[in-house]
């Protein structure tokens, strides 16, 4: 049966590989391979370090499914719920399919680091390593499947969506704030003095360290420990399979009960059309798993981002937690209309409701985000700020709240990204569609809306006039209110003007650009890029952030504030005439990468269309 299931999965993979997915697989595989080779290198350095790295692999396998909301689901247990197959046998078969793919291969390379490590433990150690390597791969895959089993039961719930948001936000924060971790590592002098003993003990007792224990014991000739470690791994695999098979049964024979929280905003609905839309939106924010996920992602991101520097005793970021939450929430909410799918038809058959639809959505977003942001800002400024920080944080918070409320309306109408219909969505946060570019654009635009308020606050500090500093708050409230009103107005007029185009765009995921001179057929799918170009575009979008933020804008900020830390910021390691130009050059490089990341698919799209239409004309002429 395992054979049939594997053949089935291979066939599914063959049918689904193409364009962006193949590119993603290649990129992911290469990145994984680099990490695996890094693991082998580590094996030559130190046992404690290797145990720690293996622990990272184990947690990667277990957290990966949380991140992707259920992992690889090309062959799902539901497909076999009608077949007369014993659940334990099915679990074993599905485990077999889990070994098909790039990640298990990469992990096999990584865990073969054990054989390198065994080099210093003689032939006995090496032999044990050869047995332990496949067992370790089987262990991480089985534990990962178990995690998916747990998620399969939990992911369709609100708790699951919030949990996935926490993991997602943590990963993003770790990537963005990695300089803090590097600094911490330097401060604690890990490279020369090794890990603290307690940490080493923990990573060695984790199941991921049992293979190392077996190899070391073999080197000592302590065969009792070898047997205990290897049998322990086998027992854990068996236990994981047993529990997983029970979860499979539960997953295919029970129905998730959708818990409906009591609606908020009942009074709102009584206050005219705008209130009714706001009440509907508030309910959707708490009931739609995708929106719950996106909102909580912003909250966790802002909080963790400012908390991580506490590791190195830096409290200076805390006052900005609220502002970060607002900026990120605006960025993840910028596909407001896309997330609701084709329910836009309700507005099309009720002309004249566009204004209420847009205003109500803005109001609901503010009601959801503002209270959290205000609490974070006030608490953060009390803990981590000083007297002069108050006008800064309050004015910028007001500015981005208003700017965000305006921009989410405008961008969600002007740059709608088609997403899986709400009725067909699972809890998978990756189903949020190709909103990456939109998120980035929003991060930049929302930051720009804070400039007037920030400028006045800076002026107040520079002139040392508290009155001017506090004037910044008024400016922030003013620009915020103005932008909310103005962008909202553009948005609802645009919605009224091109509602049908937006609906057909959501239906088909095609591109429609009315009035821009190059009208394309409504609902036509975007032309697929060849794999090479797709890989290039993916590369540009993934790596443009490094020159733009950590190597560009952050060093500029640090030069501006006169900090003396250098870390991994290249520009800060240079002498003075060069510091600012180099940082600026990095910013330009990031911007150029974003530009080409956008332009290459567009050009390809246009070129393909022109070629097609000229071929059609040619055919007509021949005909």
């Amino acid at each position, binding site marked *: 049966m395992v054979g049939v299931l594997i053949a089935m999965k291979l066939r*599914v993979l063959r049918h689904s590989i193409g364009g962006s997915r193949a590119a993603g697989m290649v990129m992911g595989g290469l990145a994984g391979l680099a990490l695996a080779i890094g693991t082998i290198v580590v094996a030559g350095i130190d046992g404690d370090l290797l145990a720690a790295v293996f622990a990272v692999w184990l947690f990667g396998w277990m957290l990966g499914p949380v991140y992707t909301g259920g992992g690889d689901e090309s062959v799902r247990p539901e497909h076999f719920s*009608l077949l007369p197959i014993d659940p334990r046998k099915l679990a074993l078969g599905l485990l077999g399919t889990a070994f098909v793919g790039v990640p298990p291969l990469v992990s096999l390379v990584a865990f073969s680091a054990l054989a390198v490590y065994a080099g210093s433990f003689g032939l006995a150690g090496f032999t044990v390593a050869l047995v332990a390597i496949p067992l370790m791969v089987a262990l991480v895959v089985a534990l990962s499947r178990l995690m998916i089993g747990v998620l399969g039961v939990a992911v369709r719930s609100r708790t699951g969506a919030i949990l996935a948001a926490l993991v997602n936000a943590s990963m993003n924060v770790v990537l963005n704030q990695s300089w803090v971790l590097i600094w911490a590592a330097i401060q604690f002098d890990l490279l020369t003095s090794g890990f603290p003993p307690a940490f080493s003990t923990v990573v060695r007792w984790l199941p991921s360290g049992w293979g190392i224990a077996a190899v070391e014991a073999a080197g000592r000739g302590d065969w009792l420990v070898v047997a205990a470690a290897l049998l322990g791994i086998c027992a854990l695999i068996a236990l994981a399979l047993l529990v997983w098979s029970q979860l499979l049964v539960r997953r295919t024979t029970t129905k998730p009960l959708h818990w409906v929280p009591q609606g908020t905003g009942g009074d709102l609905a009584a206050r005219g059309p705008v209130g009714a839309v706001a009440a509907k939106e508030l309910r959707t924010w708490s009931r739609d798993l995708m929106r719950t996920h996106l909102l909580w992602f912003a909250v966790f991101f802002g909080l963790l981002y400012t908390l991580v520097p506490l590791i190195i005793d830096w409290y200076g970021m805390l006052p900005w937690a609220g502002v970060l939450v607002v900026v990120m929430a605006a960025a993840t909410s910028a596909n407001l209309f896309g997330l609701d799918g084709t329910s836009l038809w309700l507005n099309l058959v009720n002309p004249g409701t566009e204004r209420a639809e847009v205003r109500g959505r803005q109001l609901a977003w503010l009601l959801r985000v503002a209270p959290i942001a205000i609490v974070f800002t006030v608490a953060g400024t009390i803990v981590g700020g000083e007297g002069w920080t108050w006008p800064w944080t309050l004015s910028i918070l007001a500015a981005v709240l208003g700017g965000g409320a305006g921009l989410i309306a405008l961008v969600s109408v002007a740059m709608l990204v088609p997403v899986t219909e709400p009725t067909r969505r699972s809890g998978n946060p990756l189903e949020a569609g190709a909103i990456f570019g939109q998120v980035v654009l929003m991060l930049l635009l929302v930051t720009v809306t804070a400039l007037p308020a920030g400028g006045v606050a800076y002026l107040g500090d520079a002139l040392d006039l508290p009155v001017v500093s506090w004037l910044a708050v008024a400016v922030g409230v003013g620009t915020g209110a103005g932008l909310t009103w103005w962008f909202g107005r553009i948005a609802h007029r645009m919605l009224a003007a091109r509602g049908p185009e937006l609906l057909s765009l959501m239906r088909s995921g095609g591109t429609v650009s009315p009035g821009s001179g190059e009208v394309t057929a409504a609902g036509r799918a975007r032309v697929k890029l060849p794999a090479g170009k797709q890989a290039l575009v993916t590369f540009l979008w993934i790596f443009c952030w490094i020159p733009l933020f950590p190597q560009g804008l952050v060093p500029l900020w640090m030069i501006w504030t006169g900090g003396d830390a250098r870390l991994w910021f290249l520009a800060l390691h240079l002498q003075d005439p060069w510091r600012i130009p180099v940082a600026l050059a990095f910013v330009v490089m990031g911007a150029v990468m974003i530009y080409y990341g956008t332009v290459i698919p567009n050009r390809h799209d246009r070129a393909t269309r022109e070629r097609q239409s000229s071929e059609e004309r040619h055919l007509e002429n021949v005909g």
Partner: protein
Amino acid sequence: MAAALELDGLGKRFGPKIAVDHVSLSVPPGSFYGLVGPNGAGKTTSLSMAVGLLRPDTGHARVFGVDVWDDPIGARARVGVLPDGLALPERLTGRELLTYLGRLRGLDRATAAARAGELLEILELDQAERTLVIDYSTGMRKKIGLATAMLHGPRLLVLDEPFEAVDPVSALTIRAMLKSFVAGGGSVVLSSHVMALVEQLCDHVAVIDKGRVAAAGPLDEVRDGRSLEDRFVELVGADVDDMKGPSWLAS
């Protein structure tokens, strides 16, 4: 002889709502059994519990005397099911899907391929040889689901709304298939909203309303000399004379 399908006091509650309230039905072998009822009456929930897709709170379900929940493997081997809103491996073609499922059902390679080919041909899905299931229309999904239910040659078919969204010609094909299956000694249980269809096809019928069995038995007994539609309306307690449009509409 054991009933082809027996529902014995099945009950299910979702939160505060009682979806199915002690439903008991007996489907005689060789019968064509229709299950009718208003929207939300509990038809799909009852059928799901009867075939092992949803664990009941109370009661038992038996397929040819084999308890679905005590011996799920034995029961599943004896029944073919077309569930409502079924999950399928979307990125396979129809032929691949049927072949793999046949292999998983324990058929050998040649038999699985031959049966898949025959079913695709009868259901006229063989023209869509290069189409993945994800790109199938609603009607085609129904047909491929029906094919998976018949693949292993069961003696009982349990079909949830098999004619929904199927075009008239395909519907005739499916009807002919089901009729010859019953003529050959098989049993069919199907749920439907179309009274005329149930009247034409079925020899037994059960009316389910508000999670309970309102009437069940041979068609003529349940009809009691009237049309099934009239009898149905009477059983579920709808007053036809009282039905009217909204007061503000067309006034």
